[in-house]
């Protein structure tokens, strides 16, 4: 029986599926249960240095084709973040990716330094949330200079811990941004954050459904956009591992986005469609496919489309 092991920046994952940031991430018991249900690793909610309230409800809704959210990165701040990380480490031996966020470059440095002390297996730097623009302006992921500046400071503050920079698809060239952050010291790229932002209204109430009026789009509808972003980044940076995420909704989707260049696969909105069964369902599909294939290990499929 072939296994689904992959290695990401020197960290061993029992399978490439990782819980994407912002889903089921409020507490350690919630995150560790995702591991019990079969995820290869988990990504925490975006951790802030100071408490950050997020937006009022409604903050999310879904349709068959897509999902929208504008949670606004609610978090209780560093004290609770540290507590959650410690409790999580006690509850699971599987890899923990700590996702961090800040409103300015200096705060990115500070939160990175504080979180690095807890020795997460990797740090994912969220510079691409589309839902806090009214508060902080355009995400750092929209500018090569800003994205590189954040990367450089985080890199300097976290020792040997691998860092992945989470990029936005809502830019002229995601590849240019990816190159800039890798030049600045990023070990990996997470692609993609949600698309848009988009907007939906209730026609009877004549009110935008999300309290933030706009929100990031995820779910099956954005999968083609994610595949292309991952494909393009891998083509330009073949030695940079990618956490490929965006609309992955089956085991076959996970295999496809790995073949485009993903080493790990972020899974978030799929839980809306498949519930707790998501992890086992997807890994079963992947195992069955791999078993019948000519590949000996799952790592052999990473970026295989580029060799076609």
């Amino acid at each position, binding site marked *: 029986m072939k296994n689904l092991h992959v290695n990401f920046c020197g960290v061993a994952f029992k399978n490439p599926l990782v819980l994407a940031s912002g889903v089921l991430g409020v507490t350690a018991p919630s995150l560790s249960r995702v591991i019990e249900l079969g995820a290869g690793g988990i990504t925490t909610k975006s951790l802030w240095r100071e408490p950050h309230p997020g937006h*009022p409800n409604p903050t999310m*809704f879904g349709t068959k084709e897509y999902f929208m959210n504008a949670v606004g990165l609610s978090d209780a701040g560093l004290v609770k973040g540290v507590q959650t990380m410690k409790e999580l480490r006690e509850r699971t031996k599987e890899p923990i990716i700590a996702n961090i966020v800040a409103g300015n470059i200096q705060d990115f440095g500070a939160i990175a330094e504080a979180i690095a002390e807890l020795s997460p297996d990797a740090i994912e730097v969220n510079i691409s949330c589309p839902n806090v623009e009214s508060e902080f302006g355009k995400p750092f992921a929209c500018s090569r200079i800003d994205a590189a500046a954040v990367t450089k400071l985080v890199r300097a503050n976290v020792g040997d811990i691998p860092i992945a920079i989470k990029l936005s698809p809502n830019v002229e060239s995601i590849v240019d941004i990816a190159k800039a952050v890798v030049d600045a010291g990023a070990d990996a790229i997470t692609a993609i954050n949600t698309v848009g932002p988009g907007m939906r209204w209730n026609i009877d109430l004549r009110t935008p459904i999300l309290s933030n009026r706009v929100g990031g789009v995820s779910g099956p509808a954005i999968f083609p956009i994610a595949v292309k972003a991952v494909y393009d980044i891998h083509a330009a940076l073949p030695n940079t591992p990618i956490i490929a995420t965006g609309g992955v909704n089956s085991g076959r989707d996970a295999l496809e986005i790995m073949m485009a260049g993903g080493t790990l696969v972020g899974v978030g909105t799929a839980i809306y469609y498949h519930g707790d069964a998501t992890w086992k369902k997807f890994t079963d599909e992947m195992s069955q496919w791999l078993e019948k294939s000519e590949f000996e290990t799952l790592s052999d499929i990473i970026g295989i489309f580029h060799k076609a």
Partner: protein
Amino acid sequence: MGCCGGGCGKQNGEETLHHELNTEPRAFVIDRMWEEAENIRTFVFKGTLHAKPGQFCMLWIPECDEKPFSIARDYDGEIWLTICKVGPATTRLFEMKAGDYVGIRGAYGQGFSTALTPSPSPKGRGEHSKVVLIGGGYGTAPLHFTGKCHQDAGSDVTMIIGARHKNLLIWEKESKDSGFRTLVATNDGSAGIQGFTTHILEDLLKNEAIDLVQTCGPEKMMRAIVEMCIDQGVPCEVSVERYMKCGFGICGQCVVETGEKMCQTGPVVSAEKAMTFSDFGVFHRGAEGQRKNW
């Protein structure tokens, strides 16, 4: 029409695929409203959520906020929500009038078991089941609906209602009018016995054969009820309230210490299940996930 003839939701344990849920709010007009008690009002909307008693919905006050409420009634083409004014969203709601629009989505979660499986009674009693419903404060809201469904199924219903003071008692008249044996406890003795609902339950458990206890209210009260029922071997269900944000299993705000989501596994769970939650009756979590002791 009987309550469950109105189309109660899916049975406990039956899987609902998440994308089958209507997670976009739909517009509903406030048909009428009345005061139940000080700062507690029932709002009536025309339509149905196909809810089962004990399930909840998300009520959206446009351009303000959206909050979870248990469903006080969903039959005969009407949805009733009994709501306590506690914060900015409910304050805004209390300023609204009949004819104003809100958004509602749901119903979500697991409700109370109401179509009792006619299992052989452990105490060898007659064919009808004897159900005791216990509401504390505004937790009483969903229990009349629950009682009506039991009554339709031929069960004998006792309703125990508790409040700090008689002015805060809700659903007492409806309970009596529906023919439920209705017993009241107030902290100050201004109505019913002076004391807690648990004192009444203790007496009933001593003197009567009870098939099922269902409760909704302050968690410390429910914890005491759960312990009494487990001790006496009486099946019991509790509604475990946690901070509900999305209502459909994505945000993770409502997880208990086992990692289970109360918006889907709950809010109604068995007494035995509730006792596996180390936070049950001890603490819950706020909007940013911080611990708050009950």
